[in-house]
């Protein structure tokens, strides 16, 4: 490689590395804004502003879903194994909403343990399986085979990875 090309290569590498570091720092500084939602742990720690519009995400606690028979009101608890709070919603839930499933809700935290949702989205996980395989897993009593009671037994399903990724390390979950 001759000197001119070497110099050009160095300039471009410098530009890319510089811009890369700048972008990295920018994104790091904006982490809180880029994160789509607050986790129950963050809310338990008081990191989420009460009264502000925001999104929260977590796993629906099995057995906590209470539906009103007259209206579309529904309430359920959201957890990540570190914190729990209740979510209240008025509207139609997405098809994939179920107990043990990961969800993201948009709304207002009215108190430290109560969230009023305006929108509830189901978070899907990266696992795909034919129904027969899931049936077989269930029959064999495989832990976490059933998405509905997954969080009771072992590995949670339904996009749980993102909520539990940080907590597995210290063996808390």
């Amino acid at each position: 490689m001759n000197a001119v090309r070497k110099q050009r290569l160095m300039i471009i590498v410098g530009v890319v590395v510089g811009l890369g570091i700048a972008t990295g720092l920018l994104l790091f500084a904006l982490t809180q804004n880029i994160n789509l939602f607050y986790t129950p742990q963050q809310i338990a720690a008081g990191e989420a502003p009460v009264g502000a519009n925001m999104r929260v995400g977590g796993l629906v606690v099995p057995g906590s879903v209470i539906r009103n028979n007259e209206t579309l009101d529904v309430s359920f608890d959201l957890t990540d194994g570190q914190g729990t709070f209740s979510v209240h919603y008025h509207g139609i839930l997405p098809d994939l909403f179920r107990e043990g499933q990961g969800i993201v809700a948009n709304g207002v935290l009215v108190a430290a343990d109560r969230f009023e949702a305006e929108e509830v989205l189901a978070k899907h996980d990266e696992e795909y399986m034919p129904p027969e395989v899931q049936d077989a897993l269930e029959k064999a009593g495989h832990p976490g085979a059933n998405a509905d009671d997954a969080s009771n037994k072992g590995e949670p399903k339904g996009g749980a990875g993102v909520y539990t990724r940080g907590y597995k390390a210290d063996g808390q979950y």
Partner: protein
Amino acid sequence: MLSAVWQTLTRWYHQWGSPRYFFQYSGVLLRWLWPLAIVATMTGLVWGLAFAPADYQQGDSYRIIFIHVPAASAALLGYVSMGVAGLVGLVWRMKMADIMIKAIAPFGAILAAVALITGAIWGKPTWGTYWVWDARLTSMLLMLFLYLGVIALINAIPDPRQAGRAASLLSVVGVINVVIVKYSVQWWQSLHQGSTLKVVGETAMPAEMLSPLLISMLGIYLLFACTVLVRARTEIMRRERKSQWLKEALQ
């Protein structure tokens, strides 16, 4: 052994870097690549869309993965190829590198758009919304705009050398965004799920779903390669229209 590989690579680099050699041998290559690309794409899509088993949670709506994932990954790969071509163009001032960027950008932009649109169509029944401004979706949208930016730069600057240099720089710098797209679901909390296909570790998908997915990915990659070669040949013909060798090659 290693030096022999290096020598072969340098030889290929110099050969394929010459428009004349490229024009001649890309024609030969395309004769094999087109049928292969069409067969792989058709096999992967028909198998995935019609014969692969349904998903236990999503039913049939998950089948959009057989279009969404190949399109998204080919769009990422296409941008990285543009970045490599951009680097070669900026450092070695190779004409073919500029031609390659011009050849890659349009189909890459289309694939990025396909990934975004299929994702939105899938998102409505699965998540409950077409669009959410999470890290993955936003960075992918930025990639579509970067592709469009490269196309716009090439078309806005009349001098091909100047245009090539500007497009090369945007291609090289834009590779930073490819890294962000790739890791966005790990670095930040997003609505978009993590990667199903993993280079290391177990893939969260059984073989009867994974095989058609991998075949459609191969098919889309090959299809991308075919369109790039065709577009590069067209561009060579346009630029070398006064050359004697081209007239001879076309006779």
